[in-house]
């Protein structure tokens, strides 16, 4: 839309633009509120005044409180920001690229690939058939080992998908490839589990529940850096994404280099979903639910609005879910992935049923 056209835009469009800006501001406020709540709430009761004091760098009355706020809650809340915005944006990109409302960051098999990498470290090296792959025995333990393994798994799947996407022109075929890759990696993990000791399986199972709590210090820096690069790539793809909404042929007729746009979108999604899964484990539902929620709230298909919107909605939702996962007043934590699914599914149902048609967003 040129400036001249914009100036001549009817008042209703201007009003819609204002409404969207208001929504984005409200969402940003919600994220800020969620961030504060996530740091203020937890199994250990810490007065809000003490939390603020600690965050401002002042000495705390209780050194344990300072440790909890600075070393546990603050990194967790920052991780929630990165996870929520990263997964939401990667989901939005996938849904547009495949023009399929069911797509999410896991459809390309990235999450499954990361899971395969983690399983290789945690499970293989057990007994029986997997004995030949004694990766654990090589000493690749510890948290960096897990991150590297998950990244390697995700990258392996990404390389496969990229190679195939160069040959396969049809996005639906690519979607099926992703599903099949997930299936195969799932089977390999299953085989390893079958031959593993119960305590190894438990460790892996805990990983698959997803968690924000293990990302601290240099991990958080790396995660934040990768997510920033991924989000940057995604924001740069806003226009190509808008063009792709109308179909590849239409996009091509508008002068878009579809191949390059597709590569950039897949790369961005892989970085976001791969890194987040590597550090936090598979976190269900944010990727598929938030784009629908964002479209429902902002009532637009324009990615220049949807992308920041999805970032904010994803971050707010993840922060909210993490507050719930910590069950204020209880000493236990719930797995984050379960909370996001329990909360996310009804919300998406509500949005979808209210709008009665999702298809309209994709054509």
């Amino acid at each position, binding site marked *: 839309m040129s400036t001249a056209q914009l100036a001549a835009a009817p008042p209703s469009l201007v009003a819609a633009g204002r409404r969207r800006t208001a929504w984005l501001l409200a969402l940003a406020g919600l994220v800020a509120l969620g961030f504060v709540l996530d740091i203020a709430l*937890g*199994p*250990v009761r810490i007065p809000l005044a003490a939390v603020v004091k600690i965050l401002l760098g002042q000495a705390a009355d209780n*050194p*344990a409180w300072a*440790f*909890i706020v600075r*070393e*546990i*809650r603050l990194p967790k809340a920052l991780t929630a920001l990165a996870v929520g915005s990263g997964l939401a944006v990667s989901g939005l990109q996938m849904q547009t690229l495949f023009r399929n409302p069911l797509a999410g960051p896991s459809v390309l098999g990235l999450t499954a690939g990361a899971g395969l990498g983690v399983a290789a470290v945690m499970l293989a090296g057990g*007994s029986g058939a997997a004995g030949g792959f004694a990766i654990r*025995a090589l000493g690749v*333990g*510890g*948290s*960096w080992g897990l991150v590297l393994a998950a990244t390697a798994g995700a990258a392996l799947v990404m390389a496969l998908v990229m190679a195939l996407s160069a040959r396969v022109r049809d996005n639906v075929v690519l979607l099926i490839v992703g599903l099949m890759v997930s299936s195969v990696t799932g089977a390999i993990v299953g085989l390893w589990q*079958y031959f593993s*000791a*119960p305590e190894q399986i438990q*460790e892996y199972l*805990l*990983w698959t529940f997803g*968690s*924000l*709590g*293990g990302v*601290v*210090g*240099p991990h958080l820096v790396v995660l934040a850096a990768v997510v920033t690069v991924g989000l940057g790539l995604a924001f740069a793809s806003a226009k190509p994404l808008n063009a792709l909404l109308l179909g590849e042929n239409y996009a091509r007729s508008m002068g878009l280099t579809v191949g390059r746009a597709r590569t950039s979108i897949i790369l961005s999604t892989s970085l976001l979903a791969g890194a987040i899964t590597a550090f936090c*484990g598979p976190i269900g539902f944010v990727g598929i639910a938030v784009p629908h929620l964002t479209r429902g709230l902002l009532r637009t298909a324009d990615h220049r609005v949807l992308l920041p919107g999805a970032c904010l909605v994803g971050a707010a939702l993840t922060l909210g879910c993490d507050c719930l996962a*910590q069950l204020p007043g209880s*000493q*236990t*934590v719930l797995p984050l992935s379960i909370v996001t699914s329990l909360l996310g599914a009804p919300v998406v149902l509500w949005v979808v049923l209210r709008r009665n048609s999702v298809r309209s967003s994709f054509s």
Partner: protein
Amino acid sequence: MQYAKGFTISYVAGGKLVTILSPFEQKTTATRYLLVPRGAGRPAGYADAHVIETPLRSLVALSSMHVALADFLGAADLVVGLGSFKYASAAPVRQRIAAGKIYEVGQGKELNNEELIAHHPDLVMATGWPGESLARFQTLEAAGVPVMINSEWVETTPLARAEWVKVLAALLNKEDLVNRKFDQVARSYHRLAALGHYAAQRPKVVVGLPFKDVWYVPDTDSYLTQFLRDAGCTYAWDQARAPSGSLALSFETVAPVALTADYWLQTGTAATKADILAQDARYAAFAPFQTGRVYNNNRRTNAQGSNDYWESGAVRPDLVLSDLIKILHPELLPSWQLYYYQWLK
């Protein structure tokens, strides 16, 4: 039995009656085994009881604890099958594995029934889990291979857990030996516990290593908590109760305790402080980490990765308690050398 609550042994006409209580069922169900001398007929009555001929000549052990029971009674050459070769520490059993005298039958639900039926051992000893009964072994039972569920790990004290060795002794007709040896262990344990109870200092301990957000700590009914009580220390969850024997706490809940604890015990598979730090750099803030009072129970881990603490430690609670007292109150046992535990450098 003096300590154990999970089983009873009574002497009846023509044999012995061993009753194993399943603690997992809604109403406590009991499985009864009638132990009869080899070749003697089945005595009348006890229609529901499974018959096992004694003394046993061959045993398949599905848990390393069962290996420990056999080794304690000097009957390691009885072991002909194991769930996994990986989980065995006892020297005689390792020698038998090396000599190819033991077969592997798989763990958990993936038992190799054909192998078991082909070898037809005198008894398969299995570990009990919640929600599972003897029904999962019906193929073996139908083939005439007796299976006994041994749920020793749900006992709430170390001595009760160790007392399960009396079940195997009854199967081997080694009651005299077991009474002598077990009494010795129990006496030694009580003597040590008295030391621990009267210790002047009660250092604060934190146990275990969290994974991401979850930190499992033993609850009031765990035998590990009893060890800590007997060793004379302050343990924050001494009175807490959980249905499964351990509490799944958030990192944040345990951290304040760990920050100011005097000792940190049982740190997973870590063999050095660097191993702990590699998992999460925040552990460096814990007081025991800074003062160098971190001890793990994996000193006796063999090349296969099997930790003897989980094997012989189950029948030698006196040695475990000696270690704990030596760690927490070094002045009380000056000449004791740590056996299962090691100081993490």
